[in-house]
């Protein structure tokens, strides 16, 4: 007895392989040990035999080619995960034998995505109404009767009583300026027996000329409507000590603005550098505001009318923030301005300024940096070494503010995702992007709950996908990727 010990099959485990034909003449029993150079091989390892006649007298054994093979019943082993297999044949009553490997692997690998951690900071600011008001008076004149209005006067003031005026009447040039101390006089020239309408018309013109910087004068017929240009508490219009006899009605009491020149601070994230950008939003009421010029911050002026409602103020704030398209998106209704940063990442929450608005600042949903933006992994077209142009990197462009990392010698597969996207969403987008590579000639891909199965469309072994910094996990699941070896040891006579 002696041993016959040799390798009878050496091939690729990702393809079907048949070993050499073994001349089983003189062999009594034998075992066949199959093993793999990877732990993904899938398929069937079996023995085939043949009793094709080889007449040694006429045929050289080495030149004889077996043509009729049959599976040896019960000598088949299913292989998964590249496990070794052993087949022992106790009675080798066959003329020829060979080892056969049938690959059932599909060249698949799985890529398990993780969710994006990016969160855009969100905070709701609740506005309040402006308290500012413009003083307004409605004066009803009377007709002159035999110079009854001569030397009479009435009083009005600009906002906050900054300037006090008296309006006096000079009938036919016979009047005398009362010259009230500390006040500015406005002469209204009329003629004797002027009608009330004429008196009012002349008054409107005179006041507009003299005090047009402080008030707006309107009205018709016998009315003089005086409206202050600025907000603020103002002494009501009234008749003088030498009275005109006009009727004075205060239509609107002047009041100071509570919001003018106030501000709050807020911040966004620079889409490129991801650094925090600082702003202050200040309110310019009735165009009376003064920019507070907060150091180190960019101004966002918001204009509103005196006495604007909280809803109007909020609408103006939303519009101003939405104009900063790289920084904020503002939504909401009524008094609410829901401020969402355009870019993910943490920033300082919005708070009231040193000149406070008095607005309400809700608890912020704090921003979180994306774990996937600009990160990538590598995947390769089938072929070892990887064919030219077949090395890809799959990178993630979060919220469209990513920058392709462009590793040398690799072709980009960009996957656009939104911050905070789930693993399943990312898997779906990733599968689509990978499948589209190279005109859809290299891979097919499908997603199931964030696990993307990628199947090579090109034949042959492949360099499995691997991570660079995505945090994804990778596994070759669809069959072998290297070699199978079958060694036989036989007892021979």
């Amino acid at each position: 007895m002696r041993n016959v010990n040799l390798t009878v099959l050496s091939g690729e485990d990702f393809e079907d392989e048949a070993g050499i034909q073994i001349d089983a003449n003189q062999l009594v029993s034998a075992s066949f040990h199959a093993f793999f150079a990877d732990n993904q091989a899938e398929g069937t390892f079996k023995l085939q035999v043949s009793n094709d006649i080889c007449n040694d007298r006429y045929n050289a054994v080495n030149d004889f080619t077996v043509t009729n093979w049959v599976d040896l019943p019960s000598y088949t082993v299913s292989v998964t995960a590249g496990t070794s297999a052993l087949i022992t044949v106790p009675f080798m009553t066959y003329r020829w034998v060979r080892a056969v490997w049938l690959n059932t692997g599909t060249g698949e690998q799985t890529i398990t995505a993780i969710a994006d951690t990016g969160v855009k900071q969100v905070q709701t600011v609740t506005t309040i109404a402006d308290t500012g008001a413009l003083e307004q008076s409605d004066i009803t004149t009377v007709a002159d009767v035999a110079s009854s209005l001569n030397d009479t006067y009435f009083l009005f003031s600009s906002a906050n009583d900054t300037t006090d005026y008296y309006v006096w009447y000079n009938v036919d040039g016979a009047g005398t300026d009362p010259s009230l101390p500390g006040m500015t006089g406005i002469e209204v020239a009329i003629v004797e027996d002027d009608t009330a309408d004429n008196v009012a018309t002349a008054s409107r013109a005179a006041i507009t000329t003299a005090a047009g910087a402080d008030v707006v004068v309107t009205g018709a017929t016998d009315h003089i409507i005086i409206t202050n240009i600025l907000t603020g508490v103002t002494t009501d219009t009234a008749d003088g000590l030498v009275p005109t006899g006009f009727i004075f009605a205060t239509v609107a009491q002047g009041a100071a603005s509570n919001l003018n020149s106030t501000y709050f601070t807020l911040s966004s994230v620079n889409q490129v550098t991801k650094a925090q950008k600082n702003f202050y939003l200040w309110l310019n009421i009735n165009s009376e505001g003064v920019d507070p010029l907060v150091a180190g911050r960019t101004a966002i002026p918001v204009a509103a009318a005196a006495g604007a409602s909280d809803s109007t103020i909020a609408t103006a704030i939303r519009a101003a923030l939405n104009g900063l398209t790289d920084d904020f998106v503002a939504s909401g209704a009524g008094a609410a301005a829901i401020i969402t940063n355009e870019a993910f990442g943490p920033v300082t929450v919005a708070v009231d300024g040193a000149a406070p608005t008095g607005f309400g600042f809700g608890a912020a949903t704090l921003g979180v940096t994306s774990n996937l933006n600009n990160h990538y992994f590598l995947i390769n077209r089938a072929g070892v070494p990887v064919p030219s142009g077949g090395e890809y990197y799959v990178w993630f462009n979060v919220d469209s503010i990513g920058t392709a990392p462009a590793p040398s010698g690799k072709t980009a597969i960009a996957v656009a995702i939104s911050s905070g996207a789930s693993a399943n969403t990312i898997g779906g987008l990733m599968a689509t992007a990978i499948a589209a590579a190279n005109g859809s000639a290299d891979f097919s891909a499908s997603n199931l709950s964030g696990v993307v199965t990628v199947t090579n469309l090109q034949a042959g072994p492949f360099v499995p996908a691997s991570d660079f910094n995505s945090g994804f996990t990778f596994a070759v699941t669809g069959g072998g990727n290297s070699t199978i070896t079958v060694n036989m040891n036989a007892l021979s006579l």
Partner: protein
Amino acid sequence: MRNVNCNILDADDSMSQTGSKIDSNQLVSASFSVVFGDGTANGTVKIQASNDPFNARYNAVNSFTPTNWVDIPSMSATITSGSPAIISIPNMAYRWVRVVWTRTSGGSTTINVNMDALSA
């Protein structure tokens, strides 16, 4: 025909052990008896085989190291409380074999495996 009778593993049974390779050239059949020095060992004894090719013309048997081992199906014994076991291989159609002790618990002395083989 002749008998080859030798000890192929003498080791601490309180840890898993792998015996040395056995050149099974010329061996037709073999049995492996397993004995423990105490009654506490629990685990599995099994026989592994390798057909890694060895060319006696160019390699010295003693210096050759098989690298690809596989369990021989059905050639294992479960050990409970240091009970002895025997494993018989009727058809020794392997180029190399070895014994493997996989401890799961217990063991405080030794495991001994003796082989008796029928050789051509």
